[in-house]
């Protein structure tokens, strides 16, 4: 177990000295605001900029037609689909960018925006993904030659026939239709950028809220290379980021327009979206309609599962998944259970909703998978009248069966699911709660206990399978140790609050014996940091964290050579303990790492390269499989449907823990982002394509009042293939919490024949379900 070192980065944040993108002010900087479509689907008849151009301070209005001249009006998405930067003739979702207004101040840009007159011819939008597949639905992507329907892709994995056979012969089959609603990460900082194109040197500096600065640089070069902006002319700087959670992975049109405008006018251009734009237009998460089925024995053995998904991707497939995985890691949906047969299929469709399909503090669609398996497992327990904890205990993959091959092709690295659930049950007094529940039920009171024992799949990923736009999903670390034994380390990832400046320093400190206080960590500047794919999907510690350890080990090898030279012994005679090499059997003869590093600059062996630096690009041999056992207790007011989360215990296994304080903080935060979709958040659209809750007034981000006091703990099964045994943790709780909460609520309501409720489970849904069943 590691050390709860206080975070190095906090000093600036608590003093208001963080440096976020909207804090950047450059000489001559212009401001951009964006005209957005009030319609979900409409033809653009005319854009009249005349009045806008007369507004004092407005310097330009940019439309799709202007960008078309430079062939910059379309861009690729991360899933190799295409997306408009600005439309030339049709808008495809409400709040889509229609034109950009550039002005000398934020206020003038907004005035200009109000003065742009756009004439639309509205059309009837396609909002329901099922209807989108019907033969009489209009073909939305008529920009794609030959496209005859709204289907995007079909995907399947597992053994269809064998699964059908098991289902046909099983004693018990349960089935539920589940909707995992469209939600939004709503990081407290919205997205934005300052695009600073320098005409003289043909060089672009792009300050932007991105979780993946290197990948963005490459994407910009791919989009704008034809106008002379080649990759060496682009520097992407990701300053401090006010939360990302997946929403700052994509390239949004606003970024591209800002670059185009800066390029055309030769001045820096700032674009900061406001909250409503952020909620209404930036990538959504989830939006999976799942038919979940499970086949089992009367005694409670799970035999097979079958999942069918309909994915609503909105106007384009702008998901952020590894290229070969259109449904991300959804195929982890066999969960923590030992059975041999499963089949999953998914189809994606276009609708007139904003594009996306990014994470929401989740590794590539794992949350959808975990919700499906954990809900259907509970449904099975309910069907056969077995305690859901007992049922899980009996079906778990056993600790000794790792590495374990799942029926959908994954090799789970390690875990001890029994120990996790047992610990959670003990901590919450599971049996005592069940007794209390029985007493309450006898009195007609509603109390529920919900369990989720999930397996995550993170740390993407091994280069043989994982790439984004062809770039392999390795990550990198570069360590430079200065002559006085202090270091700077740079990474291809980018913290958005995860505490990399501390965690990475601790990893290097552990490997090299240089105190973490003396290791400065830097990320987010593509000119200085080594290339990497960025921070999302809980991949930083599994990939860049591993790279840090490997780079440090390269340095330790060099240190050993230098120490042998300085101590005049052979390398084999040396022993390492953190911070120094000493001669075996003669511990008084030793050299500290600081002495060795100094020698690397002042007295290195002849024939050896001077200096003390190493870089490592870490290509993980496998993914990591963190897991968790969560138990939630709810009390429900029968008359109002009000739900009170009384207790929530989360036991996580994220492998070796580097900084327990940071890990716990991640778990707390992830749990609140778990209760959010479970009980509060959903982006709701009406049939005309209007978003009904596109502001923070009505999109319910939990406050400290809705958020329970979380109780956390862990079991530790180190990842056998990771250099320090770590697995990653940032997202486990967001993945694992929603089904624990949903299961608790359904458990409370189950005496009335209620077997499933879709999240977010609101008091109204509960009240209505009880009413429908005649319970009140």
């Amino acid at each position: 177990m590691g050390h709860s070192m206080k975070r190095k980065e906090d000093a600036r944040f608590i003093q208001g000295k963080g440096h976020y993108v909207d804090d950047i002010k450059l000489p001559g900087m212009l401001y951009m605001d964006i005209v957005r479509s009030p319609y979900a689907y409409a033809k653009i008849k005319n854009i009249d900029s005349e009045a806008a151009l007369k507004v004092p301070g407005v310097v330009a209005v940019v439309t799709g037609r202007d960008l078309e001249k430079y062939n910059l009006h379309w861009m690729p998405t991360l899933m190799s689909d295409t997306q408009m930067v600005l439309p030339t003739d049709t808008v495809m979702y409400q709040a889509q960018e229609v034109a950009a207004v550039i002005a000398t101040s934020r206020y003038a840009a907004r005035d200009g925006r109000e003065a742009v007159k756009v004439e639309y011819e509205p059309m009837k939008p396609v909002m329901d993904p099922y209807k989108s597949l019907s033969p009489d639905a209009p073909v939305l992507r008529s920009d794609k030659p030959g496209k005859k329907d709204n289907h995007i892709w079909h995907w399947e994995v597992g053994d269809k026939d064998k699964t059908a056979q098991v289902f046909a012969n099983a004693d018990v089959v349960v089935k539920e239709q589940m909707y995992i609603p469209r939600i939004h990460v709503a990081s407290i900082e919205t997205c934005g950028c300052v695009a600073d194109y320098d005409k003289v040197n043909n060089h672009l500096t792009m300050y932007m809220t991105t979780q993946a600065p290197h990948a963005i640089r490459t994407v910009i070069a791919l989009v704008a290379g034809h106008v002379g902006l080649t990759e060496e002319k682009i520097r992407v700087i990701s300053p401090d980021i006010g939360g990302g959670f997946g929403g700052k992975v994509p390239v949004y049109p606003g970024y591209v327009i800002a670059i185009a405008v800066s390029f055309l006018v030769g001045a820096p251009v700032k674009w900061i979206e406001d909250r409503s734009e952020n909620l209404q237009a930036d990538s959504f998460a989830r939006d999976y309609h799942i038919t979940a089925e499970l086949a089992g024995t009367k005694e409670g053995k799970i035999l097979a599962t079958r999942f069918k998904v309909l994915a609503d991707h909105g106007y384009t497939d702008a998901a952020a998944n590894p290229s070969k995985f259109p449904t991300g890691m959804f195929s982890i949906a066999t969960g923590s259970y030992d059975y041999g047969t499963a089949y999953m299929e998914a189809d994606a469709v276009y609708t007139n909703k904003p594009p996306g399909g990014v994470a929401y503090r989740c590794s590539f669609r794992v949350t959808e998978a975990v919700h499906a398996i954990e809900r259907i497992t509970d449904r099975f327990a309910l069907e056969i009248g077995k305690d859901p904890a007992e049922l899980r205990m009996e079906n778990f993959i056993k600790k000794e069966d790792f590495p374990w091959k799942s029926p959908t092709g994954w090799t789970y690295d390690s875990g001890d699911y029994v120990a996790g659930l047992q610990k959670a049950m003990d901590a919450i007094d599971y049996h005592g709660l069940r007794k209390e529940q029985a007493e309450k039920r006898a009195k007609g009171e509603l109390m529920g206990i919900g369990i989720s024992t999930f397996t995550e799949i993170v740390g993407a990923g091994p280069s043989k399978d994982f790439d984004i736009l062809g770039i392999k999903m390795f990550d990198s670390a570069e360590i430079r140790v200065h002559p006085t034994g202090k270091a700077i380390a740079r990474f291809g990832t980018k913290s958005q609050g995860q505490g990399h400046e501390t965690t990475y320093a601790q990893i290097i400190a552990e490997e090299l014996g240089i105190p973490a206080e003396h290791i400065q960590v830097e990320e987010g500047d593509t000119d200085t940091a080594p290339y990497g794919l960025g921070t999302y999907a809980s991949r930083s510690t599994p990939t860049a964290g591993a790279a840090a350890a490997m780079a440090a080990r390269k340095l330790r090898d060099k240190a050993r050579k230098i120490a042998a030279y300085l101590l005049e012994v052979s390398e084999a005679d040396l022993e390492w303990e953190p911070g120094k090499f000493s001669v075996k059997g003669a511990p008084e003869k030793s050299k500290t790492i600081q002495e060795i590093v100094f020698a690397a600059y002042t007295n290195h062996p002849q024939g050896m390269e001077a200096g003390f630096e190493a870089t490592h690009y870490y290509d993980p041999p496998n993914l990591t499989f963190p897991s968790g056992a969560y138990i939630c207790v709810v009390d429900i007011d029968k008359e109002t449907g009000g739900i009170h989360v009384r207790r929530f215990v989360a036991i996580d296994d994220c492998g070796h823990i580097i900084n327990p304080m940071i890990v716990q903080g991640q778990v707390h935060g992830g749990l609140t982002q778990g209760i959010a979709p479970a009980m509060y958040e959903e982006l709701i659209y009406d049939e005309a394509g209007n978003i009904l809750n596109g502001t923070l007034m009505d999109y319910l981000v939990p406050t400290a009042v809705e958020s329970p006091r979380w109780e956390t703990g862990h079991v530790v099964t180190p990842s056998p293939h990771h250099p320090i045994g770590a697995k990653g943790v940032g997202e486990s709780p967001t993945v694992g919490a929603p089904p624990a909460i949903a299961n608790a609520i359904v458990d409370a309501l189950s005496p009335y024949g209620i077997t499933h409720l879709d999240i977010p489970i609101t008091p109204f849904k509960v009240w209505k379900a009880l009413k429908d069943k005649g319970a009140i």
Partner: protein
Amino acid sequence: MLKQITVTVNGAQHTAEVEPRLLLVHLIREVLNLTGTHIGCDTSSCGACTILLDGKSVKSCTMLAVQANGKSITTIEGMIQDGQLHPLQEGFKENHALHCGFCTPGMIMRASELLANNPNPTEEEIRWGISGNLCRCTGYNNIVKAIEYAGAKMRGEETASTEPQFV
């Protein structure tokens, strides 16, 4: 038409010519260049912009700069005194009450008024007291702990351990 206003910010007087519609948060961030006060929404919902106005916590996105004329403002930059962190600043760091730090200045400013009015709040009072401030990262447990820590410190009491507690 510009209007002249005078405000005292973190003890220093500033006079500025501003548009009557200029939001106070923009005065602070863009005219006075105090960027520790953040903007997280357009509906007065998030509290990232919270400052003290004559000692009361207000959401500075919800006021016009001209309304602050003649008043005294404290922002996060003014919390450090003689190089000493405010107990809340210390509490947030010691208790890992921030991740990305974007909500932190607003949280600290809000909590400072909370503690001024109620020096020894219960957990429930703290949670309700900061319910106008959103944090998307931390799950609030440690923010509550940080405010309790600062309260204890300001009352001159022993502060509880800041080590994480596990079940």
